[in-house]
Structure formats: structure tokens, C-alpha cells
């Protein structure tokens, strides 16, 4: 093996070229890791909204809470089966999407309002009031998720949200549910919301806490085959996973496709640099061969140099991309047509993939030049 210091010093000597090439790779890695962080952000927001031991019940044929409706009479029947946790219980909720003006005057958007019963907050242990107080059941009081608090007119403590003429919701608090999509919702009293909408007889969906996640399949079969109603039962985590695919799948795929296409350019850049390096060092390579290093040793040495060069880029790109975790972007959740706020999310997985990606770029870009280097014959090189 040729010592790695040889490669490291060679890269250092050619500072400008090394930086330009690594910089190109860093930019590609930035795009790649950015797309992964976006996807991780959407997954975090939507995946943490669900829990595996909770079943969500929708009317058969509906894909989302927004288009579903379930008569009040059925709610009691969902609670009956043995799989239902007696302590956890059930919530039946109504969903409505309201038009809201952006506080900065940039136009209108849609915000999801959830009418939830008195046990709605307790049903989700991850929910905490961050400012103000919890709403009193049976009143027109509401709380807003902290991702949208202040983003929209009326959606901050003391503000009002109109559901119907002369029956506004009054915001009394802000809450968080650990970065989930609930953070982009408004929560109010179930009956107050239903009365405002004139839909007293139905809810949009029901959520049932099961004794354990393993009980889901049995519960699903029981409810879906019940002839008294036509319902669809999904594991809450699956329900949100599907939404996250619908919402972010296209953009993530585009981001990754862009990164992979630009990586072709970056690989060519690496190949140009390595070719140049090898052309300059033909005499050195000849010396190495004359000293007894094998063709394989020369090949692996130059591959290693290309890898090192690409990893410098990968590390720079990975460090730069961390800054994205300060960025939040609004996005339409296609399942609800309402706006959710996504924060770019860095996970170890993102960085591992980014470094592997940069390494692959280096190896592929450096392969042809390294083969060329390994073919140098000592005699010709030292003569030349």
C-alpha cells in the first residue's frame, strides 16, 4: 500500500483545484442531503402524529378525515370489541378546513380546525399547552398549534376565527404535539364546531386506543366485516405515512433526482481533477512502481485519493446542510388541502447517506484516471 499521507499531501499541494472539485461535490451533496432532510421533516411531522396502538376509523371509501362522515350512533359500537383499551378510550372528532389570511398579507390559505371532545387532549399524551391555557369544554374557546400561531390573522392568543356568522372561536392558548402535523391545526370543542357547521349528527372520524399494537389486525377485521355499517379501519401510523408519501413524495423524488443528475457533472469534475493530477505525477508514479509498489497498489492509491477528495466535499456539504434545520417551509397536505409547516430535519441517516453518496461520486469519477495511473510503466515514466 502507498501511504495515505502521499494522497493527502498531494491534495493539499493543489489547493485551488482540490477546493473547486470538492466544492462542486459539496454542492451536490447539499442538494441531496437537503432533499433527505425535507423528507425526514415531513415524515417526522406526519409520522409522529400517529401511534401504532391507535386505530383510526373512517367511512368506507374515504381516504382522509376531511371527506369522511360517521353517524353518532355508531361511535358506541366501535368501543365494544375486547381489543379496545379501557383506559385509553376513544375520540370522535370533526374536521373542517377554514380559509385564513396570512398575517403578512401574502394571500389566503387553508387551515385545519379539529373539533375534539373533552378528552381529546388527554387522548394524545404528547400534546402540551405552551402558552395561555387549555380551552374549557363546551365553550367557543380554541387553541392553535405553535407552527401556525401568528402565521395567520386571528390565530394567536386573543384572536378570533370565524366558523359561521356571529359565532367566532376565541383563541386562548397555543399548543405543541412535538413537531407533528397537529402543530399546524386549530383545536376547538367538538359540539361547538358541529353546531356552527350545522352537522350535529355526525363526526368525521373516530380514533380508538387499543390494548396493544398487536391487537390492530383483529380489531380491523371485526369492524370492517360488521354488517351494521361500512367503515374503513387504518392503523394511525399507516394513515399518516400514506399522507406523507402523497404530500412529500413528489418533491423528495425531484430533489433526489436533481442531486443524482448533477452528481454526473460533479463526477466529471472529479475525473478532470484526477486526470490532471495523474498527468502531472507520471514521473512519481513511475518511481513508485520502480520502488516495488504493484499496479494494484497504485490503482488503490489513486482511488483513495479520489475518495478523499470527494469526502472532503461530502463533509463540507454535510456541514453546510445543517443550517437548513433552521428553515421551516409551508406545504399543502394534499389529504386535507390545508397548510402544514415543515421544518427540515437532520437525522444521522441523512449524513450517512450523504457521505456514502459523495464517496460513490469520488470512486466512480476517479476510477478511469486511477486505471490509467496503474498502467504507467516505470521505465517510460522515468524516461519521460
Amino acid at each position, binding site marked *: 500500500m502507498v501511504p495515505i499521507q502521499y494522497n493527502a499531501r498531494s491534495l493539499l499541494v493543489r489547493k*485551488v483545484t482540490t477546493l473547486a472539485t470538492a466544492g462542486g461535490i459539496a*454542492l451536490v451533496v447539499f442538494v441531496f442531503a437537503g432533499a433527505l432532510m425535507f423528507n425526514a421533516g415531513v415524515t417526522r411531522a406526519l409520522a409522529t402524529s400517529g401511534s401504532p396502538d391507535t386505530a383510526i376509523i373512517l367511512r368506507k371509501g374515504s381516504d382522509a378525515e376531511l371527506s369522511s362522515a360517521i353517524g353518532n350512533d355508531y361511535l358506541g359500537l366501535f368501543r365494544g370489541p375486547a381489543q379496545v383499551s379501557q383506559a385509553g378510550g376513544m375520540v370522535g372528532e370533526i374536521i373542517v378546513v377554514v380559509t385564513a389570511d396570512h398575517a403578512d398579507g401574502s394571500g389566503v390559505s387553508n387551515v385545519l380546525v379539529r373539533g375534539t371532545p373533552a378528552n381529546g387532549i388527554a387522548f394524545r399524551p404528547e400534546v402540551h399547552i405552551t402558552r395561555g391555557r387549555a380551552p374549557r369544554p363546551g365553550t367557543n374557546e380554541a387553541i392553535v398549534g405553535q407552527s401556525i400561531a401568528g402565521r395567520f390573522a386571528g390565530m394567536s392568543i386573543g384572536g378570533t376565527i370565524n366558523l359561521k356568522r356571529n359565532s367566532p372561536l376565541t383563541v386562548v392558548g397555543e399548543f405543541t404535539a412535538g413537531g407533528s402535523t397537529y402543530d399546524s391545526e386549530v383545536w376547538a370543542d367538538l359540539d361547538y364546531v358541529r353546531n356552527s357547521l350545522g352537522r350535529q349528527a355526525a363526526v368525521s372520524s373516530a380514533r380508538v386506543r387499543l390494548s396493544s399494537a398487536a391487537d390492530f389486525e383483529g380489531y380491523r377485521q371485526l369492524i370492517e366485516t360488521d354488517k351494521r355499517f361500512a367503515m374503513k379501519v387504518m392503523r394511525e401510523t399507516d394513515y399518516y405515512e400514506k399522507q406523507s408519501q402523497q404530500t412529500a413524495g413528489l418533491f423528495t423524488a425531484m430533489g433526489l433526482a436533481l442531486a443524482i443528475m448533477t452528481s454526473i457533472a460533479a463526477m*466529471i469534475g472529479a475525473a478532470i481533477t484526477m486526470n490532471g493530477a495523474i498527468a502531472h505525477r507520471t514521473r512519481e508514479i513511475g518511481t513508485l512502481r520502480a520502488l516495488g509498489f504493484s499496479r494494484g497498489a497504485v490503482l488503490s492509491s489513486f482511488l483513495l485519493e479520489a475518495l478523499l477528495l470527494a469526502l472532503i466535499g461530502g463533509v463540507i456539504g454535510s456541514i453546510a446542510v445543517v443550517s437548513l434545520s433552521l428553515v421551516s*417551509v409551508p406545504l399543502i397536505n394534499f389529504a386535507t388541502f390545508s397548510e402544514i409547516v415543515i421544518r427540515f430535519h437532520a437525522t444521522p441517516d441523512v449524513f450517512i447517506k450523504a457521505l456514502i453518496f459523495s464517496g460513490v461520486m469520488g470512486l466512480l469519477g476517479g476510477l478511469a484516471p486511477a486505471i490509467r495511473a496503474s498502467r504507467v510503466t516505470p521505465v517510460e515514466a522515468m524516461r519521460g
Partner: protein
Amino acid sequence: MNLATYARRNLFRRRGRTIMTVVAVMVCVLILCLLRTVIAAWNAGADAASTDRLSTRHKVSITMQLPQRYIDELRQVPGVKAATWANWFGAKDPKERVPFFAGFAVDVNSWFDVQDEMVVPPDQLAAWKATPSGAILGDVLARTLGVKVGDRLVITSDIYPGDWQFTVSGIYTAKRKSVDRNTFLLRWDFLNNDPRAVYSKDHLGWMVSRISDASHSADISRQIDARFDIHDDQTLTMTERQFALSFLGGFAAILSAFDLVSLVILAIMTLILANTVAMSVRERTHEYGVLRAIGFTPAYIRGFILGESVLVAVVGGLAGIAVVYLVVNQGIGPALEENMSGLFPYFRASAQVLIGALVAAVVLGVVAGAVPAIRAGRLKVTDALRRID
């Protein structure tokens, strides 16, 4: 020997490197054009949306509906020439051949008068008016579902339970490129008379009106909303363009992220070009010394280097836009329009995009060559000659 000849000859001294750099520039230009075309395709809906058509919906929520009598009141508002309405049907293909398409229940008598960018043959329209269970489909949707006029078709809905049987009365084509050719239209009266639609009986999803003068759209919108302000169900009226923009607003951040990626691609291209130029200049420092010694001025040296950089950029840029023209505009673009018209009703790189990318390549060729050129121009003849690398 002039500048271009010198630049050209120099390029072939390291043929492999020049070709690779040209290919890298080509790849960057290609990706840039693709990305700009995707962004343009998304904006196309809003760009093409008319300003002489107003959309009136429930003020509180897009999911809330308006009483049927509102359409008659809307038609009385001064400046409104014609009006129609639609309800969201939540249509789905039970065999799941199409992941998503829009399904509207619309007024059989007035829809195509107002939505005149959807064209349906008169005999098919007459057949639709005579068939309550008739449906009209976009040409792309009809092809995907494998139906033609006269066929029976089963559609399900995520709002109204059960199977819905339709007869295909007609197939509409698009007058403009930005029109969705994947829409399914059923008759509103057919839906309204069905017991499954009891919750939305005699209610309208939203109303669309054509106004006589687009320049008064803001005034007329205000008048419409004022007219319904005294009722329980208040309205929100805006032009179709504002409506499309408010929808795009939900993706504004994503679109700006892709704008940022465009800049990243340009930066990568510049770095690769600059690296190539820097490498060539370093190899030829001695020659530049000779050229200076026999009387060429620093301006010439700078010209040689810049000329070389720009030439590579131009060749790569031209190759890139040629590939875009052949592959996108003649190949995958039309295929995308046929198969993904919901997402990309129109997918061709415009002349603006192609020329923009070429100009960017030229400008960045200058940028990439500038630093090495200036540094080479400043070299003292003696220093340059002393360097033997």
C-alpha cells in the same frame, strides 16, 4: 493567428479534458433546462388562468357549500355576463388505473358556456343534455380509462358512498395547453337527485362567472361578496388567476427551493469550468511568458484565456440545449403531457428557458475565466519564464 484560433488549438492539446468539461457543462445546462421547465409548467396554470373569470366560494371554508338560489343572485350582479357552478365529487377510479383526477358535478346547461377552454362537439353536448346519467371526460382521462363515447363507466367517490354508473356522453378537448385533460364531469342535477347526496342537496360547491370587463374584476368581486354579506353564508370571490396563485402559494417555498437548486447547478458548472481553465493556465504559464517576451500585451494573454473558457462554455451550452430540444421537446415532454397531464399539462422547454440557459453558460464562462485571466495577465515575464511546470 487570431484569438479564436489560438483558443481552439489550445483546447485540443488536452482533448480528453476539454471533452469532459464540455460534457459537464452540457449536463449542467440540461438539468437547468429541465428544472426551469418543471417550474414553468407549475406556474403555467396560474399564468394562463383568466382574469375575466371570477370564482365565488364559501367565505369560511372550501368544503362548505352555498345555497342554490345564490346562482340566480350572482347572475343579477352588474358586470356578470354568464355564470355556472360545480360541486366537488371526489371521483375515484375503482380499478385504480388513475391515481388522481378531478371530478366535478356541473350544471349541464351553462358549464361549457363559461368554461370555453374545454371544447366538446355539439352533438355530444346535446346527448349529455338528454342523458341524466351522462358524463363528459377529458381526452387523456378517457384514453387511460379505455372508454369511448357511448360506453358505460363505473366511478366511485370518496364523498358519496357506493358505485356510480355513468354513460360516456362526450369527450372534451383542450383549447389551451394549460387546461387539465384529466377531468371527469357529471351532471349536478343527477347528483342532486340521488339520495346519497342528501347532505348537499340543493347546494353549490362554488360558482364561476364570466365578467364583461377584466379590468373591473376587483370591483365586481367586491360587489358579489357585498351582495351575499347579509346572508348567513358569506362568500369569497376572486379571479381564477388569484385563486390559482393562492393554491400555488402553498408551494411557494418549494418553488423557491428549486430556484435555489438552479443556482447550485450554475455554481457547480462554474467551479468545473474554473478548475479546467486554472489547470490549463498553470500548465502554460511558461508559454505565456514566451508570448509576452515576443511582444504580446497582457490584454492578449487575458483574451486567450477568456476566449478558451467562453468557447468551452458555448459549445457545452449549445450541446446541452440541443439535447433538451431533442430529448425533452420531441421525446419525454409529449409523453409526460399524455400520461401525467394532471401534474404537467404542458411540458416543453420554452425558447426563453433555452436561451436563458445558453446566456447563463456564456456569462459563467467569462466568470470562470476571469480570475485565471487576470492573474496570468499580471504575471511578470521573468517570473513566468522561470516557472517550468
